[in-house]
């Protein structure tokens, strides 16, 4: 574990919190979906740092493409803006 890895972890933790806050506060649901995509991006880096490549792979596959598409399809079929 090198020093900069620790720094990246701290940074990632901040990103996660900001991203989660973004998901909650944005009125534009598409932006919220993008934010959740970024959350899973950071998470999969975290999982690799935690020596769990299997989980990182799963998070990458599920979080990036699948979750995004099902949310985007739902937004497409409902409303993009939260009121």
């Amino acid at each position, binding site marked *: 574990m090198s020093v900069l890895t620790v720094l990246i972890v701290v940074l990632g933790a901040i990103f996660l919190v900001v991203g989660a806050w973004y998901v909650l506060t944005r009125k534009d649901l598409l932006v919220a979906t993008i934010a959740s995509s970024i959350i899973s991006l950071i998470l999969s880096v975290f999982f690799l740092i935690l020596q*769990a*490549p*299997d989980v*990182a*792979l*799963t998070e990458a*596959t*599920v979080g990036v*493409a*699948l979750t995004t*598409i*099902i949310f985007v*399809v*739902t937004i*497409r*079929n409902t409303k993009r803006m939260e009121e």
Partner: protein
Amino acid sequence: MKKIIIILLLAVIGYFLADIFFEIPFGEDSMVVSKEYLDKSPNDLHVANTVTSIVVNFRGFDTLGEVTVLFLASTAIGSILFRRRKVHTKLNPQRNAPHASRIVQISAKILFPLIVLLGAYVFIHGHLTPGGGFQGGVIIATGYLLLLVTYRKFSVSHSSLTWIEAIAGVTFAGIGVLGLILGKDFLENFLPVGTINNLFSGGIIGIIYVAVGFKVASELTGILDTMLSIKVDSEENEQN
């Protein structure tokens, strides 16, 4: 007002949870049962990836449940969104949607076989490298997703999906029952285990992961196709 109460409540809960989390030491060895897994996986089962051997063999029952959950999700989405078969086929997905750019379409054509190959690689090598049936299946489904979002006339044959899904599912559960018939336990390995880090090692684990891969791929493709073929605006008149 409600928000303040909730924030206060969450603050209290968060305080207690934090108190407990930070009491658990980080990064220290506290394995009990896992030691057995780390010992038995390379030595008895000859499977390099311990996570795989746990997922498929030691706790294979969970994976059966997991596959069932996905199966249920696809059934549920079908049952929630569509009423009749006819409606389903009639609502062609992106009838009014513009085509993707020509370039994107061509690149999808080229990338699709590569993605499927990658998925196949991931689930065939599930016991050697990270990944496995589920991840490989998701990757293949993503390949189909690529085609589904770029070509508006592309559609997946539901009948063949049903067949693949059923055969893969039956392979998984059937291998388990076969173990019972051969006088062993459910899902117990009955094949030679081979040498570690060879492709053909681990006995039934490889076969099960391939079956899981096919099943997950077909289920997720079905889900994506269903979700993408929803009619956009108003709906058919429905009553009980």
